[in-house]
């Protein structure tokens, strides 16, 4: 296939531009010495001739041969003069040309450089990006030429960088100085490593250039550090929103209703499996709309988890109100049953939940800082869920009843609040929100029967730190714990960070057993 393509290219070339390359140079491609070959490649490239592409492609694909003292391109059963592109008679015994690794690399960058003159913008862009990492000093004139010809701003910026990098090896200190100055404005670790040798006297004899290089490295370092800190803060924020999604439901069931629900993590799992179920459904019946399975999963997960919550409350938890330690044990039992049910229904292995296409990729804020879309969407989703819960708790009748029952159960009952139904509803709400958390988790972590277990300790920590009885505490605690643990992870590693967070919480609870935000008032026991 490739050979046919080359043949086609050759025949096209032979029609359009004849005798464009200097035959002597082309002959030099077959020289004995590698350095001669490299020089020839560079010289052929320099003029940015379309014919050069043809010859160099042939060489890199081992179809360039030496016949007599002429370089020829031989494909299958036809032969062409390499310099002119004319079809010739098949030579008697062509000699193949050795292409070693050094030549191959040289050919690759030469071909990439030649692509800079392609008519297609995408090809030029790709080539300019590719060149950033493998620019050589010899390419400077070529790049200059491409730069002059280029009209697209994005490609132009890339080319300028490549040109500056190529010029770092220039013999003229003035050219080097200009190059360093141009590079100082970037913020990529690659450029920094290119500039680093220039800060050493052994490599850079000119003081002016050297000082400029040192300043440039410093400037790049500053920007890199900034990007790193922003990145850490963002990943902390995203961890915080995951914790928040896990803890919001708990803030209702534990914080407001006083139920220790050890099966909360399993409600997250129910939500995640509901997402998986929707994905399967969409794959089977609406493969064209597969990207929409995630929005469709949100209500499904909410109601699936809420249903499980209602069953839990009606059958077990309602008999244990006021006996928190017993509730803890019973809900642990429920969590075991749920885990095993998931194992029986879906298998013990993790199931695969794919991100919809609109969640992949990310925004490149800085060259070394890419904010992935799935994290951004999860932060947004957490805000959405938080808003939803806040509205439900503060602006609806149900929310008002829940708050009333929390504050004074007998009195609420006396004025006609159906307390036992409110308990069920509130528990279902907390469970449903855990289900929403499960949707988010399914996008960033494994979905398996055990997935809930890992979050239960974290979720409880958020609620305990935040303080019982309101949502604001959970929000601040989740964000605080998320950012704090990511910052710690930066310099101590994940496990140590986790352990120190837990130890900090244990110490914190000593000082403030009520959490950050305590309900004001007097309580007996």
């Amino acid at each position: 296939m490739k050979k046919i393509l080359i043949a086609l290219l050759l025949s096209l070339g032979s029609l359009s531009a004849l005798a464009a390359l200097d035959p002597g140079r082309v002959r030099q491609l077959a020289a004995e010495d590698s350095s001669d070959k490299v020089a020839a490649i560079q010289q052929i490239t320099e003029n940015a001739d379309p014919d050069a592409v043809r010859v160099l492609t042939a060489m890199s694909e081992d179809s360039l041969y030496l016949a007599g003292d002429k370089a020829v391109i031989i494909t299958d059963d036809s032969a062409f003069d390499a310099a002119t592109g004319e079809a010739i008679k098949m030579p008697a015994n062509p000699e193949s040309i050795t292409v070693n690794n050094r030549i191959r690399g040289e050919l690759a960058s030469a071909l990439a450089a030649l692509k800079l003159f392609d008519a297609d913008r995408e090809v030029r862009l790709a080539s300019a990006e590719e060149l950033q990492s493998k620019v050589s000093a010899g390419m400077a004139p070529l790049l200059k030429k491409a730069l002059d010809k280029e009209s697209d701003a994005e490609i132009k910026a890339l080319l300028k960088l490549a040109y500056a990098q190529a010029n770092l090896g220039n013999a003229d200190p003035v050219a080097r100085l200009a190059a360093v100055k141009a590079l100082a404005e970037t913020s990529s670790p690659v450029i920094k490593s290119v500039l680093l040798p220039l800060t050493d006297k052994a490599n850079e004899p000119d003081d002016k250039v050297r000082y400029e290089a040192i300043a440039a490295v410093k400037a790049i370092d500053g920007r890199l550090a900034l990007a790193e800190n922003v990145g850490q803060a963002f990943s902390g924020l995203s961890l915080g929103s995951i914790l928040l999604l896990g803890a919001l439901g708990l803030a209702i069931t534990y914080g407001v209703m006083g139920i220790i629900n050890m099966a909360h993590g399993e409600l997250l799992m129910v939500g995640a499996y509901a997402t998986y179920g929707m994905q399967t459904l969409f794959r089977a019946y609406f493969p064209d709309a597969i990207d929409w399975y995630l929005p469709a999963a949100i209500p499904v997960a909410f109601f699936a988890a809420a249903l499980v919550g209602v069953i839990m409350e009606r059958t077990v938890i309602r008999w244990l109100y006021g006996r928190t330690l017993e509730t803890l044990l019973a809900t642990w039992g429920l969590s075991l049953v749920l885990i095993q049910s998931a194992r029986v229904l879906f298998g013990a292995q993790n199931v695969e939940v794919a991100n919809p296409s609109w969640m992949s990729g990310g925004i490149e804020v800085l060259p070394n800082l890419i904010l992935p879309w799935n994290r951004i969407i999860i932060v947004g989703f957490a805000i959405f869920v938080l808003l939803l819960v806040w509205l439900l708790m503060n602006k609806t009748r149900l929310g008002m009843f829940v708050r009333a029952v929390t504050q004074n159960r007998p009195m609420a009952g006396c004025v006609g609040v159906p307390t036992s139904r409110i308990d069920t509803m509130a528990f279902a709400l907390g469970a449903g929100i855990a289900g929403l958390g499960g949707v988010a988790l399914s996008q960033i972590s494994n979905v398996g029967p055990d997935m809930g277990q890992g979050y239960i300790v974290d979720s409880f920590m958020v609620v305990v730190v935040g303080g019982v009885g309101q949502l604001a505490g959970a929000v601040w605690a989740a964000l605080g714990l998320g950012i704090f643990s990511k910052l710690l992870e930066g310099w101590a590693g994940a496990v140590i960070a986790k352990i120190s967070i837990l130890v900090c919480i244990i110490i914190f609870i000593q000082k403030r057993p009520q959490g950050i935000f305590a309900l004001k008032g007097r309580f007996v026991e």
Partner: protein
Amino acid sequence: MRKPLTIRILSALDKKSWLALGIFLALALVVVPVLHLNFPEDSALHVSTYAITLIGKIMCYALVAVAMDLIWGYGGILSLGHGLFFALGGYAFGMYLMRQIGRDGSYGADLPDFMVFLDWKELPWFWVGSDSFGWVAFLVMAVPALVAFVFGYFAFRSRIKGVYFSIITQALTYAAMLLFFRNETGFGGNNGFTDFKRVLGYTITSSETRLVLFGLTAVMLAVTLVFSAWLVKSKFGRVLTAIRDAESRVMFIGYNPLWYKLTIWVISAVLCGIAGALYVPQVGIINPSEMSPGNSIEIAIWVAVGGRGTLIGPVIGAFVVNLAKSWFTVSFPEYWLFFLGLLFIVVTLMLPQGLVGLWKKLMAKKGAEAC
């Protein structure tokens, strides 16, 4: 005048209980060894190695359950972190067992295999003295006691109780599990300690060693039961029960609950540590999963099944639940978690006093009918 110690110990249990304890010890120390050693394997009377290991293991669990009952049943404090103390005792004794391997490990080095694997050149400081049985026996009790004391002092001083305490103990054991999972912590990481060869110079897998360990566990369990019976009947035990039922009132009368709670908490942790140390040579492995929060909650269910606030209850509970576990995991592995989960629910909903409470209720009914 105070009665002599022997009298006080004797009066800790009634006659029936002494008799039951005597029968239990006779079974464990005489009957089982005789049946194991003197009958061929195909005989109906032969007690297999598997059975001895299983029962020995369950007796260790029963010891933990009694320790848990002291703090939960009598102190009203539900700990979800007792697996930590159990594992600490196990690890402490495991260090000794690792050193006893000597040069018989797969690398043939002086250091335990996992250290060779990590390319460590010498023992870390906390392994110093781990080749001495006496020092390790001290560590088995001292390390859980120290951890329990420090944690308990701060927790009880700031009057953390109820579910808060439970959740924090759960976080504690979870944090410890993560710590022990790290290879750099120096306790074998993921794999923990295993492949033991000897204890006090005797081959660890020989029948005699097993029987001695089995007997030791039985004696330890019996001693713990007598000690606990004496403890809960003493003045200390009475105050403790009072704190469980009405802490504020006890404070108003003039007692400081801190020291009572702390004492029982540390005693409970030490008993767990000893149980762990007896467990490791019998089972042959200790790894960080012993500290997982799930394991610690399971301890609570043994106590709840048997009946908390009684001393025989936890022992019964540990046996019932663990025998059921061995049976289920062999016969119906998929249903074990369903069974365990339902056990949690049914016991808390319908049997708040556990099996012992059920038995007492049945006896009371019978008594009422007889009248």
